[in-house]
């Protein structure tokens, strides 16, 4: 006669297997935010072994595909390349000019912010990586990239593309890493609405649509508004594109907040190459002098013009100031010629008169360092245009 265990062997084995797995689940889960916690040592070891099995064929197939693609684009599909090259070079030159102007504005902004003791992080160093695989689950939005700790990656590093942010590194192995996408339900980022400057928290969701939570209803928020990173999470530098507002609706689970869904700027479904931000800096790095020749002269000229415009109507130190006695009418002072700027106490290349007049500048000429004029007590007149007298 069969015993109870022999008769119901299969069912008992099933119950035992389910019980073991339930206990394993319970030991991993820590409320309330278990998905964001780091794995224990043994769990990480299991994930490491699985990663070691799956990563090599992923890398092999990805590299093979890229090799074939490069062979096609590099040798076969080279039509109109010369014309395209010339157009791109011209566009690059235009962008350099614009970059010089923007860099000048950014430096000025930095000087002002440092006065307010406000410091933000700039992207200083990045590592490019290829996406070689994913988690394979529709509820877990994780990508595998082909760079790991040997390439300088660490957990909780921001991952971006030129279009916008993608996510952050989660598990970093020696040669590969896992990237948690921003639309995963356990992901989060500090964001700010560009127009209204409202700060919020971006969270992923189970259906893969990122949304901003913890914002109260506000009629200033409209679909299409741009969303950028706020820098408050200390992972994503400030100002990186996140996406645009897609829909605004009351959040039924978290009244009275609204659920603002976002259309991510980066195409999270079709990522191939990403950048991992490995270093940030508090200051913008100076643009190398070799890249700024005529552009720097133009920027310098613009800065000195701006300074001259912002300091009108000051009396020259050597000039006697008319003193009005009580009861007398003040004598109107008619300034002779254009407004003069007071001499700078600590002149630099942006001080008025430090740069040569525009008529003497030649675009493309090598940059010549102009020495700042020493501070003098005599009035320093702004350069006046030469008048040509007709014959």
């Amino acid at each position, binding site marked *: 006669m069969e015993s109870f265990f022999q008769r119901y062997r299969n069912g008992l084995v099933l119950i035992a297997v389910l019980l073991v797995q339930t206990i*394993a689940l319970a030991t991993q889960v820590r409320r309330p935010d278990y998905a964001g916690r780091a794995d224990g040592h043994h769990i990480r070891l299991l994930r490491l072994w699985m990663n070691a099995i799956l990563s090599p064929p992923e890398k092999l197939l990805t590299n093979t595909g890229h090799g074939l693609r490069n062979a096609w684009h590099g040798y076969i599909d080279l039509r109109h390349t010369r014309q395209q090259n010339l157009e791109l070079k011209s566009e690059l030159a235009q962008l350099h000019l614009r970059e010089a102007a923007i860099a000048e504005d950014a430096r000025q902004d930095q000087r002002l912010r440092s006065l307010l003791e406000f410091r933000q992080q700039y992207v200083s160093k990045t590592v490019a990586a290829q996406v070689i695989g994913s*988690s*394979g689950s529709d509820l877990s939005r994780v990508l595998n990239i082909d760079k790991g700790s040997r390439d300088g990656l660490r957990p909780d590093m921001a991952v971006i593309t030129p279009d916008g942010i993608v996510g952050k590194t989660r598990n970093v192995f020696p040669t590969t890493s896992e990237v948690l996408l921003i639309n995963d339900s356990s992901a989060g980022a500090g964001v700010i609405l560009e127009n209204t400057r409202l700060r919020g928290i971006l969270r992923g969701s189970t259906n893969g649509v990122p949304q901003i939570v913890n914002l109260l209803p506000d009629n200033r928020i409209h679909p299409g508004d741009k969303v950028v990173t706020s820098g408050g999470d200390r992972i994503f530098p400030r100002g990186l594109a996140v996406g645009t507002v897609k829909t605004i609706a009351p959040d039924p689970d978290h009244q009275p907040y609204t659920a603002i869904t976002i259309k991510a700027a980066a195409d999270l479904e079709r990522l191939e190459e990403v950048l991992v931000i490995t270093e940030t800096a508090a200051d913008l790095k100076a643009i190398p002098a070799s890249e700024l020749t005529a552009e720097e002269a133009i920027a310098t000229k613009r800065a000195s013009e701006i300074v001259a415009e912002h300091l009108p109507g000051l009396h020259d130190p050597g000039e006697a100031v008319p003193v009005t006695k009580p009861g007398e009418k003040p004598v109107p002072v008619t300034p002779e010629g254009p407004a003069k700027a007071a001499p700078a106490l600590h002149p630099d290349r942006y001080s008025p008169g430090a740069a040569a007049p525009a008529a003497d500048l030649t675009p493309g000429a090598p940059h010549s360092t102009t020495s700042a004029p020493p501070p003098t007590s005599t009035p320093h007149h702004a350069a006046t245009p030469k008048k040509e007298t007709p014959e």
Partner: protein
Amino acid sequence: MARRGLSTRRALEQHTFPPVVTALIVLIALFLGVYLPHLFPRYDFLDLPLIIVIFFSVSQRSPMAGTFLGMIVGLAQDLPTNQPIGINGIAKSIVGYAAASIGLQIDVDNPLNRTLLSFAFSLLQSAILFGVRHWMLGMPGYRGLWLHELIKAGVNAVVATPLFLLLDRTRSDS
């Protein structure tokens, strides 16, 4: 008498597979599961590891073997994800057990039966995963999208039928 008839039928129709081949097929299914979504974003409708578990469970007709196979495949499927390990393990353990148990009762070599079984077990897995995530783990904001799960079950059933015919070639007849 009924038990003898049952064991006779089992002896005639139970299939075995070389362990190496089984392991290789499982690994290939797991690899394709993590690699193909990178190439085809909509690939998440297809659950190749589930199809493999169903195939081996109904072919071997051993509930214990089906349970263990489902557990191993499910746990391996959880490892590359962001989720706690065990969610897919629990679901596929139950699917493996159920598939092997039903394999004892009906003709699983019939293509129509295979298609229906694949459809039904895919829905069963979806229900189990919903139960685990929603009630056991209490995942915030998790809502089952039943139309999505129906489409998923349909896709799995359509892919499973020709795949089963291909995998039939790997069995070593007992």
